[in-house]
């Protein structure tokens, strides 16, 4: 294909949807691309044995994390709680790639000081709370976070992610129901990505669409194509606005697809090849990039520059994180409680192991 000639008269760019500004469109691109690139770096590190535990990819789902998180108002103190495939949402809330790299590599300077794995960490200042592994548990916790907003009369909103699989847990049910009864300013984003580990959605639930579950809680339901970044933003923004206006909980279903296995070790043998091929053609990052260019909202140079900035930042962060030490052994003992300062050191154990 011949490169598009800059000399040709450009069509006027179509209006930007969902009330977004052009800088925001570029910022969104930054986040989806950063998510993709950072995970690719992690995959490399994983293959080199430098990621200590498992690696969980959001390949093909970047738009759903980024677009939904972007609908929150960070300056208003909005809060979210991500799951393993919501790296993008943490980046939007201000998590630094360096922090993610340190965490995956269990470094002393990682946000959890080497105590927790992958993206299990949070930052109260920046506005996100780290998950635990037990699926569903963050839904009641985010009900409590948003309860505090309501009790204090703050106009802040919370958002919690939940997978098609996690919706089967009792804690999801108890948490969303509690929030619904209390009309809390909570957005529950249900990510329909086809699978929970190897289990297809039809073995997880008998509903057609996850958004059908909204009816059981008397909450508003909405949904969007999770691979369409701007649609994700728009649907979540509506839910956030409702929450902020005191209209309570919304369950937002985002339909997307998990293009990698559950974690890097999983070869997805249970997935039909055509399915993977179909979704590879429907890549949300490429699609958004194309949309930006084709709508004239961004020029190729801008996008290339943004990508270069990301690569540079990641080069630096990877080098830095790799060089860092693991935590000091005895640091394992402190911080179980606010006081006393540390768990007892086994009497038979010398310092440092």
């Amino acid at each position: 294909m011949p490169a598009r000639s800059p000399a040709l008269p450009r069509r006027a760019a179509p209006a930007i949807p969902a009330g977004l500004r052009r800088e925001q469109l570029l910022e969104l691109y930054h986040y989806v691309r950063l998510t993709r690139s950072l995970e690719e770096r992690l995959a490399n590190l994983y293959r080199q044995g430098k990621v200590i535990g498992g690696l969980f990819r959001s390949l093909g789902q970047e738009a759903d994390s980024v677009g939904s998180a972007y609908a929150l108002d960070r300056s208003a103190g909005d809060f979210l709680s991500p799951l393993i495939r919501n790296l993008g949402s943490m980046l939007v809330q201000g998590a630094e790639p360096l922090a993610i790299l340190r965490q995956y590599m269990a470094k002393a300077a990682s946000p959890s000081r080497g105590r927790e794995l992958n993206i299990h960490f949070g930052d109260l200042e920046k506005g996100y709370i780290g998950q635990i592994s037990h699926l569903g548990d963050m839904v009641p916790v985010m009900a409590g976070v948003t309860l505090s907003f309501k009790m204090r009369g703050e106009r802040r909103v919370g958002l919690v992610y939940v997978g098609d699989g996690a919706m089967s847990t009792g804690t999801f049910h108890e948490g969303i129901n509690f929030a619904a009864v209390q009309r809390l300013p909570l957005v529950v984003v249900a990510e329909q990505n086809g699978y929970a580990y190897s289990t297809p959605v039809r073995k997880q639930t008998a509903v057609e669409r996850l958004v059908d579950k909204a009816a059981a809680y008397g909450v508003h339901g909405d949904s969007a194509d999770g691979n369409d970044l701007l649609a994700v933003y728009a649907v979540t923004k509506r839910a956030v606005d409702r929450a902020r206006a005191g209209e309570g909980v919304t369950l937002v279903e985002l339909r997307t697809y998990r293009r990698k296995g559950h974690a890097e070790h999983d070869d997805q043998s249970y997935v039909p090849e055509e399915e993977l091929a179909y979704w590879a053609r429907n890549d949300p990052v490429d699609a958004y990039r194309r949309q930006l260019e084709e709508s004239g909202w961004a020029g190729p140079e801008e996008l290339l520059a943004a990508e270069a900035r990301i690569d540079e930042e990641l080069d630096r962060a990877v080098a830095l994180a790799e060089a860092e030490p693991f935590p000091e052994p005895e640091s394992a003992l402190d911080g179980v409680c606010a006081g006393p300062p540390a768990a007892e050191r086994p009497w038979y154990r010398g310092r440092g192991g």
Partner: protein
Amino acid sequence: MAEVTYLEALRQGLREEMRRDERVFILGEDVGAYGGAFKVTEGFYEEFGEARVIDTPISEAAIVGAAAGAAHMGLRPVAEMQFIDFISCAYDMLTNYVATARYRAGLPTPIVVRGPCGGYVRGGPFHSQNPEAAFLHTPGLKIVCPATARDAKGLIKAAIRDDDPVLYFEHKFLYRRIKEALPEDGDLLTPIGKARIAREGRDLSIITYSAMVWKALEAAEILEREDGLAVEVLDLRTLVPMDDDAIVATVEKTNKVMIVHEDTRTGGVAGEIAARINERAFEWLDGPVLRVTAADVPLPYAPTLEDYVLPQTADVVAVARRLAAY
């Protein structure tokens, strides 16, 4: 200084803390207009309003999880379990989320989870449980078990002010059966982690907590009267953190120790205490550390059965005599 029951002392403590600190709020089933199944929060709904005394759905995991989330944001929730037996439904949330939040993520989680525990009330297997051992095992959860009206008040206030999650197990048999004159000045705090010598003695020690303190004291009376034995009774008050110094001190003093708890024997708290005594004061022992506990069965309902399964004063006396004879 009016005489108040254990239940009223607890209520006073809660009320004082809610008046003192507007971050404190209560959530649980039927805690609002109804005032709670045992009326612990009676009058609170009227005084503090619906926003601070929240009736929840029947969702123990959500109650505890929501308390944790609100605590992260700076509030001080007190969650009621209608009967402590239902805390089992929040076991995952407590042991995996709440207990680890500070360690994993530096998240402050100052919540209190409280509720009526214990038997001797014909409550059957699901309204009589003593769940402390299930949580003793999890680093990150503090556990308090008041035996007196004073500590019911002092420990709830200390628990609410504590910066960590505290499980507060109140014994429903004691609610209206014991009374004490207490100051009402708002400064009655029982330090978490400190045991109390409920009775001084030099011949043998009974280490215990919660309602069993009263059985131990009764037994001590009998043993003094009938056997001339001076029995020391140590009321642990807090199980986590455990007051090892007080335990070692009583062992060093009397050289003979028994542990009394209402919970079933296998896997109960007594095992942990026995192990600590072995590790820290073995040389001081003149006899084995013995246990008086419930038999290893779910607690049955019929009076004849419940009485048989739960520890009775006569059991404490019998074991003390055997130990004294060493």
